[in-house]
């Protein structure tokens, strides 16, 4: 295995709902956390959001869904849920004028606790980057790339994981994603 990517700051990475859904869909949250050398936290508001992924067991195209169940990740210590401290509520309310509650709480935590944040949300990223002391931001693909490099995933494993995220999480790289080519090349290994 290659060297672990340091994310520092007490080895905690904050996830927003988009990334939580994607990593859950990937089915390898523990391996991702290990690759990053961190554990994950989410805002309480994110934990309350009803999240779903598509079922794996159907060979054909299917719309059958399953609810995201975080209890396993929480039980294994990979994921924790954090509430806003009183001092963070003011920032939460300022963000809540612009973004939904889960995203606002996540932004407030990222700013106040100076936590690196994994989010693909372009609006949230724009708002955060406009603030003084903006946190380090990761995208889904960036994190998956770190995981792939750390585990030295072979082409088939990588492609399967990316396809799983795409199909079970209905995920496609957002417009302007700098690692889009890496994502497409990774997936194409199974097409050839």
């Amino acid at each position, binding site marked *: 295995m290659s060297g672990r990517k340091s994310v520092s700051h007490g080895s905690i990475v904050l996830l927003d709902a988009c990334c939580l*859904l994607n990593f859950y869909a990937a089915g390898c949250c523990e391996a991702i956390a290990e690759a990053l050398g961190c554990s994950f936290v989410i805002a309480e508001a994110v934990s309350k959001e009803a999240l779903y992924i598509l079922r794996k067991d159907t060979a054909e195209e299917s719309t059958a*869904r399953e609810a995201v169940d975080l209890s396993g990740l929480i039980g294994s210590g990979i994921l924790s849920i954090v509430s806003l401290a009183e001092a963070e509520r003011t*920032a939460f309310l*300022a963000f809540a004028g*612009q973004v*939904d509650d889960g995203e606002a709480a996540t932004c407030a935590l990222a*700013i*106040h606790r100076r936590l690196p944040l994994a989010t693909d949300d372009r609006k949230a990223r724009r708002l955060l980057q406009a603030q003084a002391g903006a946190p380090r931001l990761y995208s889904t693909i960036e994190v998956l790339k770190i995981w792939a490099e750390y585990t030295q995933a072979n082409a088939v494993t990588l492609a399967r994981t990316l396809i799983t995220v795409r199909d079970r999480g209905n*995920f*496609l790289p957002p417009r302007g994603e700098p690692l889009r080519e890496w994502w497409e090349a990774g997936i194409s290994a199974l097409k050839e």
Partner: protein
Amino acid sequence: MLAEEMTRTIAGMRIGMELQPYAALDPAALGAQLQEARKARRFTQQEVAEALGLARTTIVAMEKGERRVQQDELIRLAALFGREVHELIRQRPVRQGFSVLFRSLTARNEAEAAERDAYAIEFQRLCEDYLELEELCKAPLGRRYPPEYGVRGTPVERAAEDIASEERTRLGLGDGPVVHLRELLENDIGLRVFYMDLPSRTAGMFCYSDPLGGCIAVNARHPEDRCRWSLAHEFGHFLTERYNPDISVLPAGGRLSAREELADGFAKYFLLPSTGLSRRFTMLRRTNQDVITAADLLTLADYFQVSFEALLRRLEELRLLPGGTWERLQDAGFKVREAKSLIALSSGADLVDRELLPARYKYLAVEAFERAELTEGQLARYLRTDRLTARGVVQKLGERADLSASGEAGVLEIDFSQPITATTA
């Protein structure tokens, strides 16, 4: 430090231009949102006061904007009302709520009035969300509103037929069936149309306010032919009494009020124009050598996309069928649904867009998301769904089947953030 600078620094965080400190929110606007959210959940002020451990008078003052809502109170209120804080504090365009406008309409009892308020509030939120999406995308809904039709002194039936005829002419419909009624009202007139799950007795709702324009909700739980009738009925209200909101309930056998009679008459003449229907019926009779079967009439009802009963009553009115035909068929145990399935006629439901949201609304939501004006969570909320489904909508609307020059099928990706019209230097 200047006062202005102070307000832009909150809790040790220097905030960017897009963020507004909570303290800068208009208490009256927030109070109105809180009142609306409370009513949508059918809570009394007393119940809210007890839940928060406050006096009822405090809740009254909050809703009036006379007492500032503390941060923790707002968060608890949002949880109590099952709303996002974001929904309560974002700027919204309309001040006077639909529920207030609908209050002029009578309800049978308090429970019915409370239920009506809840649906009116959701209807209003849908319309406001639509307007907000237009503002985000800078794509206002084009309006082709005719002036209100005056009907004073004209008998109701005559006025209904005249207006239906004028509107058909204005919209270039001729005297054939109106195939895509929803799309026509949305795209050619500029009305906001939603298919909502309403109480079973409610057929539809109509409301007009200046920033939103004409807004119609029809009951998605009703059969499609009934939905179309309700849509045309509410359109009739828009044409004749724009500033009077309406909630149409299914007739319970009693006599309709004059304005309901006018709107219903309009629906009848608009969907089943005398000349077009008579011509089609005469052709049918000629082809069938004067023998008209129930199957012929079912097919004709399907052609005009109206219910079998509506068609028969209209044909009776035009004296093309003997009076009482519908009742005789009913007495003989004629089952419309079974008869339709026997001759393999669809109910029309699968041909028509019965989704809650207009197609344009969904396109605007996806466009706003692609322009990074909405987060994924907001997109899901606008689409009244969860993130997974919202992602599916983005993918579905963001690409279109494409045929290459060599005839090969492929997918064309649409970049919503790019202008369609090229600018020339």
